[in-house]
């Protein structure tokens, strides 16, 4: 392995910025976040970076490495062509605050629109592991917002006002498919989260570091629900009833 790697890192803020070059000594098993920390500690103490767990569990360290949306704590240098400089830039779909830190507050506002879990009164709190297994996939989401970053509805068409984005379809799926939940979120999906804008390009699924099958397992079934419930509200009622019985 070569002794040094070159990094071109975006330095700037809302007003603009440019790529700046840094040299970093390479150690075995090193990840991009290690390199960013090295730069902070030795060359650019004010380099703005988010991170917490350094183990792919918190979803803080998202950025675009050589143009690809990644968790920097899980992007190994030995998987990158180090003969060329490694470019690290902030997620493009969110406004830059500074350097690699972006303003993701929009996501938190979308989340507020989603009605929380609610179970029927006097339910017995029993569930089958198989029913639980079906939803766990959606609940693995670490809110890295990489899927939001790549979705063209947000990235290219800026439909932030009309569209909730893949992260929140995953969230709704995690609630809707909870074995004991009795809330309907189909109107929300259609009218407020604009699920109709999604044309199933699967870009979100490709970048998800948690390997959640966002499109196949969350979005498509939710789209089907929206259609069903729109034309046949009785079905919604039956489905929820069935869910409840499954759990008991």
């Amino acid at each position: 392995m070569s002794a040094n790697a070159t990094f071109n890192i975006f330095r700037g803020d809302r007003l603009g910025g440019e790529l700046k070059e840094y040299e970093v000594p390479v150690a075995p098993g090193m990840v991009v976040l290690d390199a960013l920390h090295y730069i902070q500690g030795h060359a650019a103490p004010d380099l703005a970076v988010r991170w917490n767990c350094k183990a792919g569990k918190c979803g803080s360290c998202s950025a675009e490495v050589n143009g690809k949306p990644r968790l920097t704590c899980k992007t190994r240098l030995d998987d990158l062509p180090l003969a060329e400089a490694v470019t690290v830039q902030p997620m493009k779909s969110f406004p830059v605050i500074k350097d690699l830190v972006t303003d993701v507050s929009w996501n938190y506002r979308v989340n507020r629109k989603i009605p929380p879990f609610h179970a029927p009164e006097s339910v017995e709190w029993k569930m089958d592991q198989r029913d639980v297994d079906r939803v766990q996939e959606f609940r693995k989401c670490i809110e890295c917002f990489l899927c939001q970053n790549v979705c063209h509805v947000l990235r290219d068409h800026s439909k932030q006002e009309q569209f909730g984005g893949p992260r929140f379809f995953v969230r709704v799926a995690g609630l809707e498919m909870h074995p004991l939940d009795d809330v309907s979120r189909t109107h929300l999906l259609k009218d407020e989260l604009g699920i109709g804008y999604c044309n199933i390009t699967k870009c979100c699924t490709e970048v998800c570091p948690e390997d959640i099958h966002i499109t196949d397992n969350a979005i498509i079934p939710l789209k089907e629900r929206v259609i069903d419930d729109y034309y046949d509200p009785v079905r919604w009622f039956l489905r929820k009833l069935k869910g409840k019985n499954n759990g008991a």
Partner: protein
Amino acid sequence: MNEKFETHEHDVLIIGAGGAGLRAAIEALGHGASVAVVCKSLLGKAHTVMAEGGIAAAMANVDAADDWRTHFRDTMRGGKFLNNWRMAQIHAQEAPDRVRELEQWGALFDRTSSGDILQRAFGGHTYKRLCHVGDRTGLEMIRTLQDRGVHLGIDVYMECAVTRLLKDGDRIAGAFAYWRETGRFVVFKAKSVVMATGGIGKAWRITSNSWEYTGDGMALAYEAGAELIDMEFVQFHPTGMVWPPGVQGILVTEAVRGEGGILRNKEGERFMERYDSEKMELSTRDVVARAIYTEVREGRGTEHGGAYLDISHKPAEYVKRKLPSMYHQFRELADVDITQGPMEVGPTCHYMMGGIRVDAETAQATVSGLFAAGEAAAGLHGANRLGGNSLSDLLVFGKRAGAAAAEHAKRSTPVNIEAADVEKAAREMLEPFERAAGDSPYQIHRELEELMQNYVGIFRNEEDLQKGLAALDQLQQRAAGVKVEGSRLFNPGWHLARDLKSMLTVAEAVALSARERKESRGAHSRIDYPKYDETWAKQNNVIVRDGDRMRLKQTPIDEMAPDLRKIVDV
């Protein structure tokens, strides 16, 4: 009051948005208080999100014989009887209800065949007691609390860092903070403040903790006059990753051993037989950490200076289902397939048993209007925490702190904040920009990590602790003169300059308490005093501020209530 700064007024200010802070916020809101939560990171990124193994509660879903008494006894034994026994009792009694409540708010736990919450074995717990969701229990917990809190209407100020508590005479009046995004200052006025800021692991080089763990809550409370207790008890988790270098310290959950993982040295020997032949790998963390450390020191360590931890005798599908994040973590970061071969592991600084001294019933600190819960508070865990007892601690005492803080606010007259105090807090933050020369905060931090790792680590002795204290003194002086570059916009170097002050204060409290306790107990091992000592069995070390100096005193442990004594004496 000072008109110059953005000011927010609430009944209850909660500092920290981990499990403890969020649970406190939900409760305070339920008591009719207006509640603000501030946190250094984005909402949902606190340490609680990283918790893996599970939450301990005597639900008796798997082992019917379990009850709160056994949980209480295990906790006291694990803590070597230094625990605040009333806290241990409340914790054991209330944890099951807190878990059920979490489930009713939407958390989805793994299930037993009869449909109840599944529980797994963990070190020091007599029965299968840890409710879990694979190995991402903390994520499920924090999302559940966060969504409930937000929908109930708590105001969350994220990426906002508190740098000082403000007082009105002897009582708490609020806090001074800055927005990380803009560097602008902000004042929070509140009758009650709950510290839920977590631990101090970032003062050690090898740690499972994030950049947030700089002991802020403990240091701020100390500066405001509150007592700290049990500061010598720092938990080194036996199993952190050791290779490659960049991942050193990252946690390998105890659930690996809970699910049947076996520890071996390089000779292939199952060495726990020599340290605890009864509980083996599921002995308490202090014992397992020392065992691995000793194996390595005596030349039986692995290639990269650790021990082997092996779960590959279990079916690959089972390992992937029960330990999915461990499977990915090793595959992606260390090129190891844990279903096929062993992991290399070694001790890593993980958890702070010590912290802000609180009242067992109300979580109130020794300053009026100040409360503390979660890792920032102390008492429940004594000399050593059992795995899984932190997540339950957050819920049980977070709830109590939130209720007590709201009630305190109701009873209190309005508070006043002195403009001069606010000015002083602002000046302290701006000084590092104005210095012409000085060390980089990163340099001081590296030296601190090295110092704590070498002199205030797993095994301690008088000479090292003396050296450590002298070096800390020097670092404190240099830290007071650090220079910061760049602007106030999201500036991690500037932030670290302030965090250093907290870390150094807490590090000094740890080293002082460790030097004083001339015995070995739980996580505190003195090579020069390897045995238990009767005198030290009956007292806690307490740190308190005395003018500009740190003072150490001892307070006796209350006699345990007779009915509880009967439980532990079995």
